[in-house]
């Protein structure tokens, strides 16, 4: 029984490693301030070992343009930057291909760099897969995201409320317990007289006809 299970899992793993494709990961969107450097990360998942012939290629399609242009290619262990296009001298390869990282750094971004960057990674023999895109948005001033301040205020106030209520009940519990143990040690079974003030904490009020 166990051997059958092991055999099935090995066969399945073999099948799966032949038929699944490479999966490329990038961020969804990147926000950057004018003049700063932006790191566009790209990574992939593949069932094969990372081959020495792994390739990364980046394409750029400006907002409103119909087609993309190639701006970066990594192959045969060496990076090749675009020396004629809009990113000449501004692009740097900061990835580590042996660790499946094909990230690039774009320096000194401007409003003309708004657009979609597509990363395509290939890990021979695993070459079938979809490239992944990241949108770059360049701002003059980083905008407050909708709802961040709202959520923060609500969260803080409710948290404080819960904290105050918890502390209040904890203090009551501790005081009652301390007083109770004090009365136990002093008078044995019956706690008399002066500790009667704690009685107001736990009444058993009948539920009938509650009114004013």
């Amino acid at each position, binding site marked *: 029984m166990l051997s059958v299970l092991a055999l099935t899992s090995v066969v399945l793993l073999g099948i799966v490693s032949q038929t699944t494709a490479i999966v490329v990961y990038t961020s969804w969107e990147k926000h950057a301030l004018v003049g700063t450097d932006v790191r566009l990360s790209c990574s992939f998942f593949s069932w094969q070992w990372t081959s020495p012939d792994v390739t990364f290629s980046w394409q750029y399609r400006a907002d409103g343009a119909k087609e993309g242009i190639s701006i970066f290619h990594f192959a045969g262990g060496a990076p090749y930057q675009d020396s004629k296009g809009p990113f000449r001298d501004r692009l740097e390869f900061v990835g580590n291909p042996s660790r499946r990282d094909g990230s690039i750094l774009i320096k000194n971004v401007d409003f003309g760099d708004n657009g979609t960057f597509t990363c395509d990674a290939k890990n021979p023999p695993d070459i079938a897969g979809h490239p992944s895109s990241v949108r770059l948005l360049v701002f003059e001033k980083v905008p407050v995201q909708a709802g961040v301040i709202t959520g923060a*205020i609500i969260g803080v106030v409710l948290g404080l409320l819960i904290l105050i209520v918890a502390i209040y009940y904890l203090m009551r519990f501790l005081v009652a317990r301390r007083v109770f143990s004090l009365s136990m040690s002093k008078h044995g079974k019956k706690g008399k007289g002066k500790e009667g003030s704690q009685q107001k904490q736990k009444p058993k*009020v009948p539920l009938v006809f509650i009114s004013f």
Partner: protein
Amino acid sequence: MLELLAALLVLHLSCIALLLAATINNAWWMTNKVSTDIWARWTLQADGGWNYTEIPNVSAKEYLQAVQASSVLACIFCILGLIVFVAQLYTLPKGRRFIFTAAFQLMACVCIMIAASIYTDIFHKDEADGWYGVSFVLAWISVCLTLVSSVIYCTMRKKTV
């Protein structure tokens, strides 16, 4: 005195209803073609339909989020106050006042007052064509109602038959 209990519950429920209406309905400021505020903007199209759009990027975005947060908090406190009131009806010893409930109602009053004040002072001050809408009026009315409710809870005592 069951009528007093019923009246108190009606008052509390109407506070909740007014607060929810003020918070959810996007009608703090209205013009002939626009009904806006705190979450989004409704614009009247040429063909008679209304379009739901984002509030354009004004300089006071952080204040708008503060108004949003405050009014939501006011709703939360009022609803929690109702739950606490029912709980206190059953657990309060005889002769004691409903201080906990009154505290929640007071917090709700303070929150919605903050929201309405910020909105009144910051937004739409220089716009001549337009008027304050339903939600704005309801927000200020809830300030009074929650304050009244809180004071009443402070003076009520628990009594068992």
